[in-house]
């Protein structure tokens, strides 16, 4: 669509869009990366979600930007996962889908052995998240890691709030069990 053909958002709405971009872009990409295990595809999805929001700015109230973006991103992710599954069925030698996404470099450690240990722990945590079934993983990523409310997560996942609560509870249990030796009480 030509931009001239598309109504320009008013300054307040545009300012809200900029705020959303600043506040949610990283979270959206992180969510998509952990769902897809593919940071490059996740960046594209985050961008497509913002592009979609821009086109629908006049329809989406500002206070709904965040769940709207996550819902769109989640739909794109599920779409990709479905296509991947289909491709995997066609090409069984495609192994890339099972390779874990590299953990971003954590620069908080000066000593190499500390950094190596921290990295090992992070790989374990990431593996524990990836081992969760998709429906549990979604609830876990949205509520536990992105801090969304149960109501927003329910809107994103298209399910009742109670279901979000149950999935989150199951996800937490499994995640805790998977990391049993890292948890010291």
């Amino acid at each position, binding site marked *: *669509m*030509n*931009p*001239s053909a598309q109504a320009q958002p008013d300054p*307040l709405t545009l*300012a809200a869009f900029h705020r959303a*971009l600043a506040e949610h*872009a*990283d979270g959206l*990409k*992180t969510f998509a*990366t952990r769902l897809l295990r593919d940071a490059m595809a*996740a*960046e594209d999805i*985050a*961008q*497509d979600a913002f*592009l*979609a929001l*821009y*086109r629908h700015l006049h329809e989406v*109230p*500002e*206070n*709904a930007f965040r*769940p709207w973006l996550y*819902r*769109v991103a989640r*739909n*794109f992710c*599920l*779409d990709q996962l479905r296509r991947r599954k289909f491709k995997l069925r066609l090409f069984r030698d495609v192994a890339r889908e099972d390779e874990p996404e590299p*953990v*971003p*470099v*954590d620069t908080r450690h000066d000593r190499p052995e500390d950094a190596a240990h921290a990295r090992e*722990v*992070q790989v374990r*945590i*990431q593996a524990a*998240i990836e081992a969760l079934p998709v429906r549990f993983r979604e609830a*876990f990523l949205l509520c*536990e*890691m992105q801090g969304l409310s*149960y*109501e927003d997560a*329910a*809107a994103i996942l*298209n*399910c009742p*709030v109670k279901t979000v609560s*149950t999935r989150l*509870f199951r996800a*937490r249990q499994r*995640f*805790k069990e998977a990391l049993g030796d*890292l*948890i*010291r*009480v």
Partner: protein
Amino acid sequence: MTCTQYQSDLSNNLDGRLPAGRRSRLLAHLAECAACTRTMRELEQARDLAMSLPAHPVSAGFRDTLWARIESGEAAPEVPVISSVPGLQRVRWFLLGAAAAALLLVAGELLRPPRPEPTTPEVAKATPREAAPGVTLAGIDAQRLEPAALAASAAASCIDGTRSLQSRLAEVEVRKDSIDLRALQHELDPELRRVRASVNTLRWMKRANLMQPLPPELDANLHVVERSLEMVREARSVDELRAAQRNLQDIRIEPLPRFLFVPAQLDPNTFFQRLQEFYVDDPDAPHFLRMQIQIVRDPAGGEPRATGILIRGGR
């Protein structure tokens, strides 16, 4: 209840999602049950581990690429299932759309040349007509909008802040042996200030006669909130904190006006613009931006018809 039955409550409690009664029961159970307390600590640690994972920030060129795509007029990709927004969100959006549509209908009704015999006399009485299009709609009453929004915000802030304080102080019951009183007071200070500011706002509005109708027992409730805030701030022992918590538990703050009534004859564009300006300038805006909007029907009965919209402040 058995320990197994408390497990899902532990998860909900982590997110502050338990109703006060169940939370109290859970806290009482935790005070006696070492196994459940251990599970709670494990869940907290697991959460810390999950949160320790670094984020995947977008690349440096993310914004530029996005704007280039927008400016080039690139069509957004097909959005799967975007039209079927579910559950609460769907209801909210429906209500928002319906409220806007109702307002447009009313505005359209007003801008239409007067008919000799109005079919809906109660609306005709409430909304004086203007014949020519483009005239200012009568009864906009915009001067009342901001005070009313302020009242809704302050009340929501007071209610939410008080609940949040209640919930934080309830933790004292569990951690009473390991509590660092000064650190806790320091941690709670921003919350105390926020609630205090909302109490001051409500008092000022009452004095200035800006709050109509006046909620019942407003002064008594605000006094208890105020007193409890002082008790928390000045507490020298855990017992004093617990006394403050009990005070807050007893308070009846629900009658405070969380609701803002906006007359239907207000032009929807003006309304949303003014409201947004108001909230954008409010330093506490994030707490109040989540609004639920619903159509209010004519309280006098008769033909169901929107007479205005209602905004609920708070989380």
